[in-house]
């Protein structure tokens, strides 16, 4: 068949792509502008923080990380953020699924409300949580000054991320492939695991990265309800603010660069996981 004969050439062209630059003059200028903007906005400040942290040498790092209170804050922030992200992966995907695949009364309203935690100023979110789960809770649930408060606040503000990244991908997902799998004998769970999840993996990972990044940086929504008790409910951003307020900017920078490394590590791990899932099927 002629179509079969023509294909190897096409594949060879595919393989060679990516090795050579395709920049034209216009896109070269655009790339230059965006890199400059990105540098001014992101890379230079980051470099400045790392430089400020490094100025104190390893001993500064050692003293910051050796501080039990700081270490407890890092542990709390990272574990709570990972926990919240894991919860969002499940709940966020489920909400996106319901919003795309099911039809029910109030669906439009739910679709709009999903964004509220994201749109609210974080301190307002904190106030909302405090009024419902604080000491004067009308429903009798008092989470104030506990780790549940940290978890709840993080879950509240990060809820929309995975929903909003998965939703459009799910909408575009080809229902044919699922029907094909069904007629080949695959049950609902197998279809979900082998056909749907690999297609959603990149979106879920992107949402998880956003959710984790937001969680480790959260301040406003949890500061009211958690009470920021040292060794118990104090998160990194609160600890850092304490450093800055007490004039210890070097320690703040060291802590900041540690958080930067953690964020990078998590993003890389998520990317690896995503590639695995997308290929496995």
């Amino acid at each position: 068949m002629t179509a079969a004969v023509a294909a190897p050439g096409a594949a060879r062209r595919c393989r060679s792509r990516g090795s050579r630059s395709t920049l034209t003059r216009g896109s070269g200028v655009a790339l230059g502008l965006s890199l400059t903007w990105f540098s001014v906005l992101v890379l230079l400040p980051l470099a400045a923080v790392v430089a400020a942290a490094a100025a104190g040498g390893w001993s500064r790092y050692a003293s910051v990380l050796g501080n039990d209170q700081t270490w407890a804050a890092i542990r709390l922030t990272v574990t709570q953020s990972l926990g919240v992200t894991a919860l969002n992966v499940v709940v966020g995907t489920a909400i996106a699924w319901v919003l795309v695949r099911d039809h029910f009364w109030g669906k439009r309203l739910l679709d709009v409300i999903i964004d509220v935690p994201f749109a609210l100023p974080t301190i307002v979110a904190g106030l909302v949580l405090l009024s419902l789960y604080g000491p004067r809770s009308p429903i009798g649930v008092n989470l104030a000054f506990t780790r549940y408060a940290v978890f709840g606040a993080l879950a509240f503000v990060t809820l929309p991320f995975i929903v909003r990244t998965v939703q459009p991908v799910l909408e575009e997902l080809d229902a044919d492939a699922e029907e094909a799998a069904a007629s080949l004998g695959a049950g609902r769970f197998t279809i979900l695991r082998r056909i749907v999840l690999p297609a959603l993996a990149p979106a879920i990972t992107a949402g998880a990265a956003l959710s984790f990044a937001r969680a480790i940086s959260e301040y406003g929504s949890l500061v009211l309800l958690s009470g920021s008790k040292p060794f118990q409910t104090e998160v990194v951003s609160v600890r850092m603010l304490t450093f800055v307020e007490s004039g210890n900017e070097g320690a703040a920078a060291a802590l900041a660069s540690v958080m930067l490394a953690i964020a990078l590590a998590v993003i890389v791990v998520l990317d690896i996981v995503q590639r695995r899932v997308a290929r496995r099927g």
Partner: protein
Amino acid sequence: MSIDVQHITKRFGDFVALDDVSVTIPSGGLTALLGPSGGGKSTLLRVIAGLESADAGSVHIEGTDATRLAPQKRNVGFVFQHYAVFKHLTVARNVAFGLEVRKVPRAQVRQKVHELLELVHLSQFADRMPSQLSGGQRQRMALARALAVEPSVLLLDEPFGALDAKVRKELRDWLRRLHDEVHVTTVFVTHDQEEALEVADEIVVVNGGRVEQVGTPDELYDAPANDFVMGFLGEVTSLGGRVLRPHDVELETGPGRDAAREAIVTRVLRIGFETRVLAETVQGEQVTVVMTRTHARTLELVEGMTVWLSAAPGAVSVAAPTGAAGGSDERDPAVPLAV
């Protein structure tokens, strides 16, 4: 009988996609569901596959009542118009999918996938991703995937609809040969009458949610049940309240036969080897006549000339639909159909 569909009705809101449809499809044959878009043929196929549940009626596949059976349990192979490939799996793993789901031992899966890829001429592409294949290759992969589970029936929904004309024709011939090799009961949906006439053993004409006629390509062409079937299988014109093929109209330059109708030639078109004459009878009927160029030349036809038209002896004709209704407007004889 391999597939037995009885009194199937399916509604989507107010729209009746299938209206009390009954049809039986014989074992081992290659059957076409032919009809215009939106006529219900794809819905019928999806009901047979279990991808759509009917509001009323029953479906039996190989003697088992499949009406309430999930698609997973029907043992049908389904091929989609837009291939429905599993994008993240290689060609070989796409084909292996149904076998893996059935927990077939690995060595056996590998053997079977190899055989099938050979059958659809894709052996050298086993480790490619579907995105690296052409449309025709993807559809052959989808076919191999559907055949892997050894289905009792193979259902194809406009399988060549998304392909260009040349590949379409190649695949059509190839499907016919494949069917002669594999002998699985096959039903395919198409809106292309040429495709149906060329490939199928039997054609089911579906229109407006109903079955218009069932028969072999010859039966449908030579003895159409009504003007719809006749019009759908080829070009038609009307003369004296009868619908017939334009090449079955005889044109004479003098009044000879009793039934001949007087008409004025309004247009003479030469298209390739044939000549197409448009004429208006004194009763105001627009008639299309198709003849060979040689014949047209001997008659020395010019526009404005008076001629006499009659149905050729032995011509197949059916009664014209009464009134303007009946959906005959797209077959208005005054408008020459695309050639």
